[in-house]
C-alpha cells in the first residue's frame, strides 16, 4: 500500500470490544479504505483527516488482547508497529475494563514508541460506578490520556490535538518508563539488554528492553528478528544462552518466565487501578449479567437461540429477497445502454459480440448484482449480532455440538449464511469465517460451504420436487436440507481428522458486555463488506463468464445447419408476405430492413406498456408518444387500433400476420439455440460423460445442464429450459416439458438428481472467495472437485438402491 504524502502515520491499537472501530470512525469520518493486510485475510482499514494543514493517516490495527507471536492478528499488529514505524500509536482502552486493557498498553509502552492512551467508553465506566483519575493514570504510564465516548464523538478534538502534540514533543525519553518484572527476572533482563545494545543496527529498529522481555517469553518471532539481524554466529549463541537462562529460571523458581511476566503486568495493572480508580457503587449485578441469566439459561437459551436464528433467516430471506426483487429492474437497466450498442440485423442470430457482451458479461454481472441487497441485509444483521455481543453467546451455546464434527461454536453463523437451513449464499458465509481465530476449524468450515443450500439451488429443488413429489412438497424440501446438513457434518468430521492442518487456537472466547448497536455503525459495516465483496468478485467473474460463454457457444452448429435455418426463415417471411397480400397498405411499410425496425418498435412498446401497468392516464400518454413516433408502426403494434381506439382493418390484418411471423421466428431461434448448446464444447463433454453418469440416472441433457450451469447455478433452471425448449425462466413450463421429454423418469431419478444438486460444486465467485480466504489454489480446486465426486457417488448409490426396490 502507498502512503503517498503523509505528515503523520498513526497506528490504532486496542483490545477486542474496546470500541476501537468507533474511535477509528470518529477520527477519519467517511474517508476510509478497506483491504487486506498483504498476504493474509485480516482486514486492514485505513483513513485520513487533515489537521493544521497536515495530513494524518490512521491505520486500524487488528484488535488483540496481547502482542505475542502466537496469532496472526497479533503478529500483524506488532509487525506494523515495528516495521512500518508509525509516528505514533493510539491505544484504545475500554475504561470499564481497565485492568485487562492496561495489560496491552504496557506492552506497547515497552516498545518505545510515542503513545497516546485513548480512554474510551467513559460513559459505560461511569454508569458502572468507576471514577478514573486520568491525570494520575497519565503520570503512572508517562503517556497522555484522553477520555472519549467514541459512539457519541466525545473527545474527538482532544484526541486529535493529543496526537499532534505528542508527535511534536521533542523531549520524548523512551526508556524512562519501565515495568518492574521483579527480583528473579530483572537481573536477567538487564544483562540481556546490555548484550543486545551492543548490536547497533539491531537497536536502530527495536527496543532492547522489549526484545529482552520477548526473548525471555520464548517468543519465536523475537528469536527470528535476532537471528536475522546478526550475520555471525553470535546471534545463535545469544539464542542458546536465552534457552539456558530460561531453563535455569524454571529450575530456580518453578515457573516459566512468561508466567511471571504476565503476573507482574497484571499486578502493575491492579496497582494502577488502586491508585487511579475509585468506585462508588458496589459490584452488583450488571445488565449483562441479567440478560445472560436468560439468554444463556440451560433451557431457555437454546430456545431463544433457535428463535433468533429463525428470525435472522426470515429477515434475510424475506426482507432481503423483497429488496432484491425491488432493485432488480433497476440493476437490469444498467446493462441496457451497453446492450443497446449491439443490435443485430439478423432476426435469428445475435451478433457474436452482442452475445458475448449481453449473455456473457452483462448477464453474469447482473446475476450477481441481484444478490447485493440480500448481502446488504445479511451483513447488517451480522454487524448487529457482532456489535451487540450476542455473536459470542451463539458460539458459547453451540460449541460443544459443533466441536464433535471438527467445527467450532463460531462456525454457526457462516453455516447459517451459507444456507444450512435452506437458501443462503456461500460467499458471505465464507466471509463470516474471518471472525474465527481457530484456523483449522475455519478452513474446515470454508470447505463444507458448497454443501450448504445456496439460494440458486432452491428453484431447482422446487422444480424437481414439483414434478415428482407434488403431494409432499414441504416434506421433500425439508428432507433435502436435512440430508445436506448431515452430509456437511460428516464431511467436516472426515476433513478435520484427515485432511485439514492448521493453527488451532485455544477456545478462549470473551463474552463482551451487551451494547446497543448504533445505526451508523451497522450501516457502515454492511456497506463496507458489500463493497469489499463487489470489488473482489466482479473483475474475476467477467473473465470467467467469457470463458463459460465460449464453451457453451462454440464451435457452433456448422454451415449446413445454419443454411437450413436461413431457408426456414426465408420461407417464414414468404408466408408473411403472402398473408399480407399485395393490396395491404402496410405491406410497403414492412419491406426490407423496415421489418426489423418494426419488430424493435413493437418490442419497445410492449415493454413500456408492461411497465406502466394499469395506470390509465400514463397509458394514454404512452400510446400518444408512440403514435407520434411512427403512426404506421404504432397501428400494427396496437393490433390495428390507433390511440383513440379506431380500427384500421388493413392494419389489423397485417398485425395478425406479424404476430404469427414473430412466433415462428422465436421458435426457430430457440431451436437453433438448443442445438448450439448440444453441439457446443460443454455439450459434447456432457454427452461423452453419459456412459458414466447413467449409473446415477443422468442422461446427456441433464449433463449439459449441469456442466453449463457451473458458472452460476441460477442458470440451471434456465439452461434446462433451453434444452427442453420451454419458455425461458418459468419453472412451471420447464417442469411440463421435462415431464413430456423424459417419460421414463421415476422417483429414483428425481432423488438422484436432488442429491447431486444438493451437493453441487460451488459457483465461480465462491471458488474465488475460497482462493482469497484460504490463500491457496489447491483448496480452491479441491472445493470445486470433491462435491462433484461425493455428489455423484451418493446419487449413484441412491439410484442403484432405488433400482433394487423398484
Amino acid at each position, binding site marked *: 500500500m502507498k502512503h503517498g504524502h503523509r505528515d503523520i502515520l498513526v497506528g490504532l491499537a486496542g483490545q477486542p470490544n474496546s470500541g476501537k472501530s468507533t474511535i477509528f470512525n470518529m477520527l477519519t469520518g467517511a474517508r476510509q479504505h478497506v483491504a487486506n493486510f498483504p498476504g493474509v485475510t485480516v482486514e486492514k482499514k485505513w483513513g485520513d483527516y487533515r489537521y493544521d494543514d497536515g495530513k494524518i493517516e490512521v491505520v486500524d490495527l487488528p484488535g488483540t*488482547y*496481547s502482542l*505475542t507471536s*502466537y*496469532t496472526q492478528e497479533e503478529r500483524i499488529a506488532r509487525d506494523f508497529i515495528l516495521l512500518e514505524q508509525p509516528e505514533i500509536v493510539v491505544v484504545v482502552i475500554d475504561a*470499564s*475494563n481497565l*485492568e*485487562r486493557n492496561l*495489560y496491552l498498553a504496557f506492552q506497547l509502552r515497552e516498545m518505545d514508541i510515542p503513545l497516546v492512551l485513548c480512554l474510551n467508553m467513559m460513559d459505560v465506566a461511569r454508569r458502572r460506578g468507576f471514577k478514573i483519575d486520568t491525570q494520575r493514570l497519565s503520570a503512572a504510564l508517562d503517556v497522555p490520556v484522553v477520555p472519549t465516548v467514541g459512539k457519541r464523538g466525545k473527545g474527538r478534538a482532544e484526541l486529535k490535538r493529543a496526537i499532534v502534540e505528542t508527535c511534536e514533543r521533542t523531549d520524548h525519553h523512551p526508556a524512562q518508563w519501565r515495568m518492574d518484572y521483579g527480583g528473579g527476572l530483572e537481573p536477567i533482563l538487564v544483562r540481556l539488554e546490555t548484550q543486545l545494545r551492543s548490536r547497533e543496527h539491531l537497536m536502530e529498529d527495536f527496543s532492547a528492553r522489549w526484545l529482552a522481555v520477548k526473548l525471555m*517469553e520464548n517468543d519465536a518471532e523475537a528469536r527470528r528478528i535476532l537471528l536475522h539481524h546478526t550475520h555471525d554466529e553470535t546471534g545463535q549463541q545469544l539464542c542458546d544462552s536465552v534457552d539456558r537462562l530460561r531453563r535455569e529460571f524454571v529450575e530456580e523458581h518453578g*515457573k516459566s518466565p*512468561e*508466567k511471571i511476566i*504476565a*503476573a507482574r503486568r*497484571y499486578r502493575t495493572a491492579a496497582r494502577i487501578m488502586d491508585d487511579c480508580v475509585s468506585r462508588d457503587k458496589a*459490584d452488583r449485578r450488571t445488565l*449483562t449479567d441479567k440478560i*445472560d441469566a436468560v439468554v*444463556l439459561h*440451560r*433451557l431457555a*437459551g*437454546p430456545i431463544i437461540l433457535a428463535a433468533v436464528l429463525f428470525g435472522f433467516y426470515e429477515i434475510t430471506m424475506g426482507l432481503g429477497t423483497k429488496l432484491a426483487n425491488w432493485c432488480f429492474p433497476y440493476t437490469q437497466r444498467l446493462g441496457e445502454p451497453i446492450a443497446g450498442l449491439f443490435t443485430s440485423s439478423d432476426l435469428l442470430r445475435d451478433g457474436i459480440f452482442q452475445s458475448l457482451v449481453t449473455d456473457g458479461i452483462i448477464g453474469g454481472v447482473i446475476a450477481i448484482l441481484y444478490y447485493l441487497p440480500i448481502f446488504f441485509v445479511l451483513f447488517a444483521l451480522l454487524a448487529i449480532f457482532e456489535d451487540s455481543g450476542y455473536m*459470542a453467546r451463539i*458460539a*458459547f*451455546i453451540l*460449541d*460443544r*455440538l459443533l*466441536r464433535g464434527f471438527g467445527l467450532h*461454536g463460531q462456525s454457526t453463523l457462516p453455516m447459517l449464511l451459507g444456507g444450512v437451513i435452506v437458501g443462503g449464499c456461500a460467499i458471505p458465509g465464507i466471509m463470516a469465517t474471518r471472525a474465527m481465530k481457530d484456523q483449522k476449524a475455519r478452513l474446515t468450515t470454508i470447505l463444507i460451504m458448497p454443501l450448504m443450500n445456496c439460494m440458486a439451488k432452491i428453484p431447482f429443488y422446487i422444480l424437481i420436487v414439483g414434478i415428482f413429489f407434488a403431494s409432499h412438497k414441504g416434506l421433500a424440501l425439508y428432507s433435502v436440507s436435512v440430508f445436506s446438513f448431515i452430509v456437511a457434518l460428516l464431511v467436516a468430521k472426515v476433513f478435520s481428522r484427515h485432511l485439514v492442518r492448521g*493453527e488451532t*487456537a*485455544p*477456545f*478462549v*472466547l*470473551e*463474552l*463482551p*458486555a451487551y451494547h446497543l448497536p448504533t445505526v451508523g455503525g451497522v450501516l457502515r459495516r454492511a456497506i463496507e463488506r458489500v463493497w469489499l465483496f463487489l470489488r473482489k468478485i466482479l473483475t474475476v467473474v467477467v473473465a470467467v463468464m467469457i470463458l463459460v460463454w465460449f464453451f457453451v457457444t462454440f464451435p457452433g452448429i456448422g454451415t449446413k445447419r445454419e443454411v437450413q435455418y436461413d431457408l426456414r426463415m426465408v420461407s417464414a417471411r414468404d408466408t408473411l408476405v403472402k398473408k399480407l397480400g399485395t393490396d395491404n397498405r402496410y405491406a410497403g411499410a414492412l419491406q426490407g430492413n423496415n421489418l426489423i425496425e418494426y419488430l424493435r418498435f413493437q418490442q419497445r412498446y410492449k415493454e413500456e406498456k408492461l411497465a406502466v401497468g394499469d395506470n390509465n392516464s400514463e397509458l394514454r400518454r404512452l400510446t400518444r408518444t408512440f403514435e407520434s413516433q411512427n403512426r404506421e408502426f404504432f397501428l400494427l403494434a396496437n393490433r390495428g387500433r390507433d390511440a383513440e381506439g379506431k380500427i384500421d382493418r388493413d392494419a389489423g390484418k397485417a398485425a395478425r400476420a406479424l404476430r404469427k411471423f414473430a412466433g415462428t421466428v422465436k421458435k426457430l431461434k430457440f431451436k437453433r439455440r438448443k442445438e448450439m448448446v448440444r453441439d457446443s464444447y460443454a455439450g459434447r463433454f456432457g454427452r461423452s460423460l453419459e456412459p458414466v453418469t447413467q449409473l446415477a440416472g443422468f442422461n446427456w441433457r441433464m449433463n449439459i445442464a449441469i456442466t453449463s450451469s457451473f458458472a452460476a447455478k441460477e442458470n440451471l433452471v434456465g439452461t434446462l429450459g433451453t434444452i427442453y425448449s420451454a419458455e425461458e425462466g418459468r419453472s412451471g413450463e420447464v417442469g411440463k416439458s421435462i415431464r413430456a421429454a423424459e417419460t421414463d423418469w421415476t422417483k429414483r431419478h428425481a432423488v438422484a438428481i436432488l442429491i447431486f444438486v444438493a451437493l453441487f460444486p460451488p459457483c465461480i465467485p465462491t471458488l474465488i472467495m475460497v482462493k482469497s480466504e484460504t490463500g491457496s489454489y489447491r483448496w480452491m480446486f479441491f472445493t470445486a472437485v470433491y462435491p462433484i465426486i461425493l455428489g455423484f457417488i451418493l446419487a449413484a448409490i441412491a439410484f442403484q438402491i432405488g433400482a433394487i426396490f423398484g
Partner: protein
Amino acid sequence: MTLDEVPAGQEVTVVDLHLEGAEMQRLLDMGFVDGTRVKVVRNAPLKDPIDIKIKGYLVAIRRNEAKGIEVKTE
C-alpha cells in the same frame, strides 16, 4: 483442584497453569495469573464450555482448557 471441577456459582483463586504454548499464553494474557480470583458463572447448555468471570469481565473456555488451570478455594 482444577477449574473444570468447580461448580457453577463458586469463586476460586488461580494457583498455576499446566498448559503450554499458545494455550497457556492466551490464558495468561486474559488474566489467569496466580492469585487471581475467578468465578464460574455457569455452564453452557451442553455443559461445555464454561462461562468464567475474571477481573470484571466474562470469558468462555472449554473444559479441556479449564482442566489445565489449577485453583484453590478459600
